[in-house]
């Protein structure tokens, strides 16, 4: 057990670190084009995101939804499924949570909040189960259906918040959720909430489920080789739907966190690509709960620092989005290396 734990990290840790370093070098080139020193720009970024308790709390706050979407994408990845639909699941989950939040008023918090969170998970799970089902039943690749479902979710929620559920104003958003359905702040004035604990719990649950239960074993077996798993008596269709649904529930939690912890209402198209960033987080975190938390904190830090960098230097904050894209690219391109290590290390 310990042996194995010692053998894997070298390759597993080195590759993401290299990807991030390479991305920072590419980013330096962009910083140089505006005539700033990469060193001082990155320093401003780090100071803002890690230099104070308040900054660190903001980093964690921005990392929280990414932990959920990272876990979501990773969970599906482990089953050999690519859930590129986390963004859509996030929106459906968010709307479900918001709906429970502003509809069932008058409930005590101890009932209302869990109910809203549950609704968010169910909304995401249902949305993700559809491409899972279409894959299991008809063999249609989940990627294309997930992409289609993303857009259907955008337009569906666009309609919901500009039509039947628009709040009293002309703004495309719902009513505010009741206070009894909101997540408590941990460190005011920062917006870090108890959602962070839910994210840690979700990571722990994923670990337990994936490596300590029969379901997790079957999911990983399907992920490694569906044909062999089928011969081994595993119901691949059932596992496919289950893995997608759980993945969707996690993505739904990301949306839920944005509603009940941050915005307190559903705002049209509120997500800054959190679902797609989940792909980056999952890959960088090597589809492992611990790695995902660390990767999410890194991206949270980049986003927290971006605003300060924008303010204090002439580097536009979009540098961070560029970095995020480049990081994914390098993580993707080192797949050959990791696959090689995996086949030597784990098999």
């Amino acid at each position, binding site marked *: 057990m310990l042996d194995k734990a010692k053998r894997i990290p070298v390759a597993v840790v080195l590759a993401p670190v290299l990807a991030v370093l390479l991305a920072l070098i590419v980013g330096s080139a*962009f910083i140089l*084009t*505006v005539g700033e020193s990469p060193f001082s720009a990155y320093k401003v970024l780090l100071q803002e995101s890690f230099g104070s308790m308040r900054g660190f709390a903001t980093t964690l706050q921005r990392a929280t939804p990414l932990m959920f979407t990272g876990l979501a994408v990773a969970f599906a990845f482990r089953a050999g499924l*690519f859930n*590129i639909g986390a963004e859509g699941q996030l929106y459906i989950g968010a709307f479900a949570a918001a709906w429970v939040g502003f509809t069932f008023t008058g409930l005590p918090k101890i009932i209302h909040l869990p109910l809203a969170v549950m609704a968010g998970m169910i909304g995401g799970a249902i949305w993700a189960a559809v491409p899972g089902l*279409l894959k299991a039943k*008809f*063999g*249609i*690749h989940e*990627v*294309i*259906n997930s*992409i*289609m*479902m993303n*857009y*259907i979710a*955008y*337009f*569906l929620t*666009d*309609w919901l918040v*500009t*039509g039947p559920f628009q709040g009293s104003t002309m703004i495309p958003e719902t009513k505010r959720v009741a206070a009894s359905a909101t997540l408590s702040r941990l460190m005011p004035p920062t917006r870090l909430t108890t959602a962070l604990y839910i994210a840690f719990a979700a990571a722990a649950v994923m670990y337990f489920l994936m490596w300590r239960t029969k379901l997790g074993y079957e999911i990983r077996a399907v992920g490694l080789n569906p044909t062999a798993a089928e011969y081994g008596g595993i119901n691949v269709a059932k596992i496919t739907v289950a893995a997608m649904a759980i993945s969707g529930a996690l993505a739904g939690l990301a949306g839920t966190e944005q509603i009940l912890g941050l915005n307190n209402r559903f705002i049209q198209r509120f997500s800054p*690509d959190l679902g*797609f*960033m989940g*792909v*980056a987080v999952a*890959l960088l975190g090597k589809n492992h709960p611990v790695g995902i938390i660390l990767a999410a904190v890194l991206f949270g830090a980049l986003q927290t620092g971006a605003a300060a960098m924008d303010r204090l230097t002439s580097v*536009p904050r*979009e*540098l*961070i*989005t*560029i*970095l*995020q*894209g*480049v990081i*994914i*690219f390098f*993580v*993707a*391109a*080192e*797949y*050959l290396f990791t696959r090689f290590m995996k086949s030597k290390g784990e098999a």
Partner: protein
Amino acid sequence: MWDIIKLLVNTTVLAATLRMATPLLFTAVGGIFSERSGVVNIGLEGMMLIGAFTAVAVSYSTGSAWLGVLGALLAGALMGFIHGIASIKYRANQVVSGTAINIFAGGLTVYLQRLIFNMAGVSPAVPRIADVELPLISKIPLIGPVIGKQNPMVYLALLIVVGAHIVIFKTVWGLRLRSVGEHPGAADSVGINVYKTRYVAVTLSGALAGVGGAYLSVAHLSRFVEGMTAGRGFIALAAMIFGKWNPLGALGACLFFGYADALQMRLQEIGIPTQFVQMLPYILTMVALVGLIGRAVAPKASGEPYVKEG
């Protein structure tokens, strides 16, 4: 009843259909080349966006919108080539690489927008490609008002569809392309260079997506707007599937999706929310995928890196 039909089918709507279908056509044909060679390209959206921005930047600095289109073509090709390096050489997961390109493009275009134009959101107006009136054709009743006076890029898109059909189905290179996407191993064994064919196809797909983006920024409009592709890369992907990976099929799908786009405002007038019309291409594509079950239409090796043996 007659009033509703006149509202939904008239020369103004049909002319708008062609305009809305044009960016989808370029990009869908690009997607077909890539997938026919065996490389999934979900980075089309990002490639379009980079094309749209490059076209504006070049048109702004040279005063020529056509040079802008050329710039967009090159920028798109570069992104396609990069996607090729990741997915062909480094056998990266093609969906991941495509996602990276989409995120990167979103950041890069806004970054450069702020750097070059020092403006957030929208670029200043730049020279655009003017509409042209076809002699004779524009005088034909009914047809004239629809296709007689359009942007030259609309005609270009239609030519590219026909050209792509000929290249893919009537030329030796097209045969090679299809074989590489269906059975790379077999293609390799008869001496076809799988890697080179895929590189050419993916680069071409990026170039076409770039031109599709350029249509939006320097022909349809005359400026760059942040995130202006607004999912059209994915609609093009849907059109590709809907059209069963054939240029002519994709033309049908793009015209249909373009028609839905052109109708949005009018349907709202008769009480159908625009969002449901906007959803339509995506829902129909999912339905079409179920309908295609059991009939092998997608290139077999699409999405799979090819590993040369020995």
